[in-house]
């Protein structure tokens, strides 16, 4: 409905009027009164008293009708988009104004007869605000406008007198210049305004404003930037705009199937943008998130490149299955499970991380969806949270090339202080003395077989190298207003710290194209990326061998071959001669089409495809084989081995959706209905060939005299859902968001496939209420939000409900045998997660301080577990629903402050902390279940049942333990108690300092936790090196080397006691980044649009009291390569 000009002329209003005075807070009634008053004024002025009161009344009534309509639209206008996009060529002004009204909700008051002198409008604005839009439209019109309280009143321009005209002509100049952002990139579409004259910058950021008086104030503004006022001059001017801090209304939050702004968001979503991601010289995007997102716990499992990362969002919901969040890359679900085939052992550092098949530099932002409101629309897949990854898109404007290059190196940041040879041999001797024994045939280190004078620092030899890293990324982007593109490519090479020369490389390419039709109704967005990784690693983690006796033999013999010391020494370097190679290829593509059928009603569909492939190859040449193990082959060539596997997972997804929005009453209603069809297919083949005639031929399986297929896999997963969202936003202050979903998953047996889930979220922006704005003006933003809902979890292996046999790889009597694959239970159903969350978001002192506090409680019931069974049943588990309820509760705090800011120097901090509490709420009949001594009701799932250490018996010298049930024996079943080993809290603190062109970022991550201490994992005295601490520790029982002696059993109990759980808290300087931006005058140089030189450092130092190699990877008694300290230097520039 338009304020129809026709009615206005019927009301005999043919003269522009004075502006009515409007108060700040208007009700409909107020407006009507004002209007009646205004009509009277008009009538008085123009027609005098000839009009009868009836006519006035009639006119007023008519006008009232229109005004009411206007006002109802006005009020709701507040929830309209703040951005206006227009594209017209020689269009009538009226049509253009109508379009603005539709998009913005602003209404126009004008005399319709005026339109006869209106000039045709040619205008193009993209996502501009109302003023920019109006400036652009009215620039050449014989009208001026006035914007007040969402009403735009249009008047004819006053014709200046001749004298004024001449005077201004003499003084007027043409002011031109260029508007750029902080990085020096041009800002197309910025508004340049002076004395009623206005223009927009072109695609190069340039503008030219003619006919302004010299020295007059010119205001340059752009969305998201602080406006700048300059004096008009005859010289060309470069104008730099600074970004506004924390403009909540402008920050768009992606919630997957829909977007909202940070201000209006009802759920809990954390965003990490490219600016922060790019500070990390890492390959795997997950590693760049550590310490930056409250409640997101990231644990690197190895320092070898591309190894898997443990990710837990708000603790462990499920006892057994699928605690990984859902990853969505541009709308396509991404498999986060390693593709490694179980039949082929991995190389150093374990499984590959599929997330390393993404390119950090192509990521625009990562959103972490946590609560029910944010995740419910993902239904079952989002039970453990959703991590949305959005890739960079092109922007309209001049084409731009971005280049980023860095190089550097890494080393382990910690080292164990181990015994040297004399200390080690003394320990061994003492052990034999204590056991009253003499070295046996196999005690090679002390029985004279090995040289007792040798010393090797195995840490230095095996993991003391430098991992060199080089990363080069380039992107070309640009486009016009309708079509934008971005092409990018990159290369990365990363070495290892292991002995030998292994290098992993990564190549990536990405294309995104965005296109909008001229009438803005149709939009297509395509993104496609391809990444290939080649990992070369030792076939085992050499860090496993750092506890070798320090006098173990030399690695090479006199001839330069591996030294096996007559079969008495398993040479750790054999692993470096055994090629272990993994190649991954990842294709991920998405096409999103949308069409606006009628205003408010939009049809959308997204089509995605992802194919991720992993090839593993392990070659065992004869030179790497211990000759002692070769002798049982009739033919030594059988010692040469080629193990390889190929594993592919592919996903397609189609998601049609319809959305509709409409203004109802004083608010805005959004409705979304959609459906998901998804299929994942996984295929794998693993085979082994042996018996190659020489080492050079080993890579070709064809040369094998015996070849066997070890494992084949082929599985299918299908998922289907119908989802819906209804949201109502009342005056941008009260927001209600309902989401619901019906999910079907092929992982459940017949009749169990479907489940219903939903959530309610609400937000109250109390900061906008009068009582706050008037009484507590220092509160610039305030929001209370809460959500409640449920999601399901189907993250379990496929086909668990199906009783099947698999084929054995070898034949018996000429037939390949079959074996039962698993125990089966067709009756299990959806695991259910109920989530509640409440949060407060505060912006203080013009958003210089932003504080978010969230409280949540997730309860998971109907737990899907591989229920542990005694192997008496033939297998050790069965898929089943457990009646147990697990609760994850916690508080997350996120505080961002601008501590200091002036022209040259600024200091900003952001701090986050998560305090998670995990609890097993109920577990009916736990004591009769196989979890009786695994979990305890009322305690965390992160407990270990351990003996309670009570010190050393002074007479026997043996460790003693609490006899919990007082039966005189220490028994496994009765005397262990649950001991917590996990995180108390964790988080991060980031400080950003800017001084002129310099920027320093320091990110500290911290974790307060307890964990298994490595110190006592091997009985001191046995043929294995020990930390120096055992020499001085006064709480150890005598050294012993006898597995059958008196000391061994108590040592075993000790290893299963609470004495091994110690504090493993740490503060790690996760990331330091120092950058110097190119000065602005460099932009005069023809090609350079901006850039910086930087140094970055990952894991610079760690403060911890943990006794072991690394408190992050923990690893207990098993020694694994810790995350590396990586130092890099690089340059980034735009051309």
């Amino acid at each position, binding site marked *: 409905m338009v304020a129809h000009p026709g009615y206005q002329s019927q009301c005999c209003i043919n003269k522009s009027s004075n502006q009515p005075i409007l108060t700040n807070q208007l009700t409909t009634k107020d407006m009507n009164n004002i209007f009646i008053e205004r009509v009277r004024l008009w009538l008085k002025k123009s027609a005098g008293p000839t009009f009868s009161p009836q006519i006035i009344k009639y006119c007023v009534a008519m006008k009232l009708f229109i005004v009411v309509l206007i006002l109802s639209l006005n009020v709701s206008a507040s929830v309209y988009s703040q951005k206006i996009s227009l594209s017209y060529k020689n269009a009538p002004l009226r049509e253009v104004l109508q379009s603005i009204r539709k998009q913005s909700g602003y209404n126009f008051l004008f005399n319709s007869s005026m339109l006869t002198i209106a000039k045709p409008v040619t205008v193009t604005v993209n996502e501009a605000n109302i003023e920019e839009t109006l400036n652009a439209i009215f620039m050449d019109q014989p009208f001026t406008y006035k914007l007040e309280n969402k009403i735009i009143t249009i008047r004819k321009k006053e014709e200046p007198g001749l004298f004024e005209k001449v005077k201004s002509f003499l003084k007027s100049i043409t002011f031109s210049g260029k508007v750029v952002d902080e990085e020096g990139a041009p800002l197309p579409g910025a508004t340049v305004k002076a004395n009623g004259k206005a223009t927009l910058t072109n695609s190069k950021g340039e503008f030219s404003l003619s006919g302004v008086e010299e020295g007059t104030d010119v205001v340059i503004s752009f969305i998201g930037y602080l406006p700048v006022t300059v004096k008009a001059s005859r010289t060309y001017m470069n104008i730099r705009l600074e970004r506004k801090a924390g403009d909540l209304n402008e920050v768009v939050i992606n919630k997957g199937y829909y977007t909202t702004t940070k201000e209006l968001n009802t759920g809990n979503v954390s965003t990490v943008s490219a600016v922060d991601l790019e500070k990390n010289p890492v390959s795997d995007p997950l590693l760049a998130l550590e310490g930056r997102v409250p409640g997101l716990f990231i644990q690197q499992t190895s320092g070898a490149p591309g190894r898997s990362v443990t990710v837990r969002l708000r603790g462990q919901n499920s006892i057994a299955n699928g605690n990984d969040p859902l990853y969505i890359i541009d709308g396509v679900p991404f498999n986060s499970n390693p593709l490694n085939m179980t039949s082929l052992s991995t190389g150093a550092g374990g499984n590959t991380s599929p997330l390393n098949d993404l390119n950090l530099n192509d990521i625009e932002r990562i959103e972490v969806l946590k609560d029910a409101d944010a995740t419910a629309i993902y239904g079952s897949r989002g039970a453990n949270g959703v991590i949305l990854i959005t890739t960079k898109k092109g922007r309209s404007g001049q084409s731009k090339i971005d280049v980023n290059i860095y190089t550097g190196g890494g080393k382990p940041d910690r080292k164990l202080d181990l015994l040297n040879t004399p200390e080690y041999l003394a320990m061994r001797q003492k052990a034999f003395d204590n056991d009253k024994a003499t070295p046996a045939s196999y005690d090679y280190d002390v029985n004279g077989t090995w040289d007792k004078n040798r010393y090797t620092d195995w840490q230095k030899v095996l993991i003391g190298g430098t991992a060199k890293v080089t990363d080069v990324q380039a992107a070309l982007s640009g486009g016009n207003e309708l079509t934008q593109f971005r092409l990018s490519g990159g290369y990365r090479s990363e070495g290892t710290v292991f002995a030998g020369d292994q290098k992993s490389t990564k190549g990536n390419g990405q294309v995104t194209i965005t296109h909008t039709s001229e009438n803005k109704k149709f939009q297509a967005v395509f993104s496609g990326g391809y990444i290939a990784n080649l990992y070369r690693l030792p076939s085992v983690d050499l860090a496993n061998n750092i506890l070798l006796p320090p006098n173990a033999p030399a690695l090479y013999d006199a001839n330069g071959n591996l030294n096996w010391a007559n079969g008495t020494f398993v040479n750790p370097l054999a692993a470096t001669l055994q090629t272990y190679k993994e190649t991954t290829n990842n294709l991920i593509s998405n096409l999103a089409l949308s069409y606006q059928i009628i205003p408010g009603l939009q049809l959308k569909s997204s089509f995605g495809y992802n194919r991720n492939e992993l090839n593993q190859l392990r070659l065992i040449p004869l030179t790497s084989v211990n000759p*002692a193990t070769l002798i049982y082959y009739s033919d030594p060539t059988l010692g040469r081995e080629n193990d390889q596997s190929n594993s592919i997972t592919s996903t397609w997804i189609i998601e049609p959706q319809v959305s509709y929005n409409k203004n109802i009453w004083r608010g805005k209603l959004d409705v979304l209905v959609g459906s998901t069809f998804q299929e994942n297919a996984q295929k794998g083949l693993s085979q082994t060939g042996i018996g190659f005639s020489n080492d050079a031929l080993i890579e070709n399986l064809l040369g094998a005299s015996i070849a066997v297929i070890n494992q084949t896999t082929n599985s299918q997963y299908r998922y289907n859902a119908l989802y819906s969202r209804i949201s109502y936003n009342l005056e941008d202050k009260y927001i209600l968001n309902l989401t619901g979903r019906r999910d079907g998953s092929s992982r459940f047996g017949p009749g169990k496939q479907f489940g219903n889930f939903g959530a309610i979220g609400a937000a109250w922006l109390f900061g906008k209420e009068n009582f706050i704005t008037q009484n507590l003006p220092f509160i610039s933003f305030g929001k209370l939000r809460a959500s409640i809902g449920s999601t399901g979890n189907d993250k379990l292996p496929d086909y668990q409900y*199906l009783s*099947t046999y698999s084929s054995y790889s070898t034949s018996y009597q000429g037939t390949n045998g079959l*074996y039962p694959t698993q125990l089966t239970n067709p009756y299990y159903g959806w695991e259910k997660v109920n989530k509640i969350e409440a949060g407060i978001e505060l912006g203080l002192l013009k958003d210089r301080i932003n504080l978010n506090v969230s409280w949540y409680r997730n309860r998971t019931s109907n737990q899907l577990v591989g229920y542990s069974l005694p192997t008496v049943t033939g297998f050790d588990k069965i898929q089943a629903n457990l009646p147990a309820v697990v609760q994850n509760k916690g508080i997350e705090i996120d505080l961002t402050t601008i501590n200091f800011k002036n022209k040259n120097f600024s200091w900003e901090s952001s701090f986050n902390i998560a305090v998670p509490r995990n609890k097993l709420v109920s577990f009916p009949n736990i004591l009769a279940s196989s979890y009786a001594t695994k979990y305890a009701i009322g305690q965390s799932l992160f407990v270990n049942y351990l003996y309670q250490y009570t010190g050393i018996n002074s007479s026997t010298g043996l460790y003693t333990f609490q006899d919990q049930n007082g039966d005189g024996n220490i028994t496994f079943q009765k005397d262990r108690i649950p001991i917590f080993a996990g995180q108390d809290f964790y988080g991060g603190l980031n400080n950003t300092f800017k001084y002129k062109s310099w920027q320093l970022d320091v990110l500290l991550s911290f974790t307060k936790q307890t964990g298994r201490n490595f110190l006592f994992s091997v009985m001191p005295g046995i043929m294995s090196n020990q930390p120096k601490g055992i020499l001085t520790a006064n709480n150890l029982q005598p050294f012993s080397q006898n597995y059958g002696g008196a000391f061994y059993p108590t040592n075993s109990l000790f290893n299963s006691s609470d004495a091994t759980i110690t504090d493993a808290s740490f503060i790690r300087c996760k990331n330091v980044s120092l950058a110097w931006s190119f000065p602005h005058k460099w932009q005069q140089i023809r090609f350079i649009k901006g850039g910086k030189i930087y140094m970055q450092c990952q894991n610079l130092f760690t403060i911890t009291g943990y006794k072991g190699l690394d408190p992050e990877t923990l690893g207990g008694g098993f020694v694994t390569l810790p995350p590396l300290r990586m130092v890099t230097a690089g340059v980034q520039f735009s051309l």
Partner: protein
Amino acid sequence: MKTIYAYMLIISCSLFLESCKKFVEIDPPTTQLVTVKVFDNNESAIAALTGIYSRMNNDSTLPYTFSLQTGLEADELKNYSTSTSMVQMYKNALNAIEATTPNYWKLGYNYIYQANAVWEGCNTSTQLSPAVKKQLMAEALFIRAYWTFYLTNLFGNVPLVTTTDYTINSKASNASKDQLYNQMIADLVKAEADLNVNYVDGTSVATTTDRIRPNQYAAAALLARVYLYAGNYAAAEQEATKVINYVSLYKIASINNVFLKTSSEAIWQIMMPMPSSIGNTYEGAYFNLGKVPASGLTNNATVSTQLLNAFEPGDLRKINWISSFTSGTQVYYFPYKYKEKGSSTITEYTTPLRLSEQYLIRAEARAQQGTLSGAIGDTDVIRNRAGLTLIKDTNPNINKADLLTVILRERQVELFTEYGHRWLDLKRTGNVDAVMMQVCPLKGGTWSSYKQLWPIPQTELQNDVNLSQNTGYN
């Protein structure tokens, strides 16, 4: 009109939901076979059974590892391995927390599960040919009895498992020795009745020369052993006699032919599943030393002094079944029953049941029943092949106790490193404490009587609350 639209909406919605339902109903994986289909035809049903034999050979190179570890645990072998699992076994220092490596408990019950699954699958199937069905069900019972026998003798009062139903098995409690032996006997009696007289080939019906599937006499031979262990000497004698008397198939072989695939005294053998890099047998591959013993999991043991000393001078078994490797002045003796180390020409099969054991079973059973002459005669058959003097010539009036001692020592030197005979014999004859008190300290361990039973793996106790640990273990 409105109602028509409503109906259309309802119909289209239900069609949509129906298609959703179809969408998430997927086919079974192509790499696996649905269990009901396995027992739809002879071929796959046979494969489900013979798969068990494949695993009994290939899982953890079981024929070698089992013989090695029980040999290390008793007084047969000397350890050179630094592997914890070997050292613990050698020093009689097992504990409940660390299950044995390999985990015999888990393997044994997995084979029993598979055997039960085959029995149940065949039992309900109507599509198998009757002969095949009968043979497979009988073999399944044979396998169940075989593994129940070993689990009982290694771990003591283990749970008795006769079904695949996990809801029952997961609550299983320790069975008594009687229950266990009664079940073994019942299974073997049934198996003996139903098994083919001849050795069958891959069709489970046609006869072949390979003795790699149990026949009626394999069941009788195992039954003889079970009766002997259960103390039912008359029945043991009777079953052993059945085998011994079937001379058209079973004859004592010459000393170097005993472990050949063509051996005339083999009662039941297991073939190496093909293809294999090892070729013949794991015993041949891993016991035979071509170098000094190594620290790893194979080629890591020599024959113990106790065993070497147990041979009488001139014993052909010491000459032919033990070989040596000399390095400097050090001589390493190793078991040499299986001679092939990886030849691709297959001449040997591992042999769990052979005729000589039947003679020794009958000798013992007869001696226990007082028929000493018969016992002497049976013992002499074995001594004769070993090139030793015969008891009937040297000591015809030997008393029962002495004869039993002779038979026990004969078992020691005849059946060494063959699936744990020595370890089991020491225990069932009550000699274990006397012998191990001597031997264990020599191996660097400390003996206690409770160690004759292995500890039940700790996780089993955790997962089955009805199960009790063997005395002596925490």
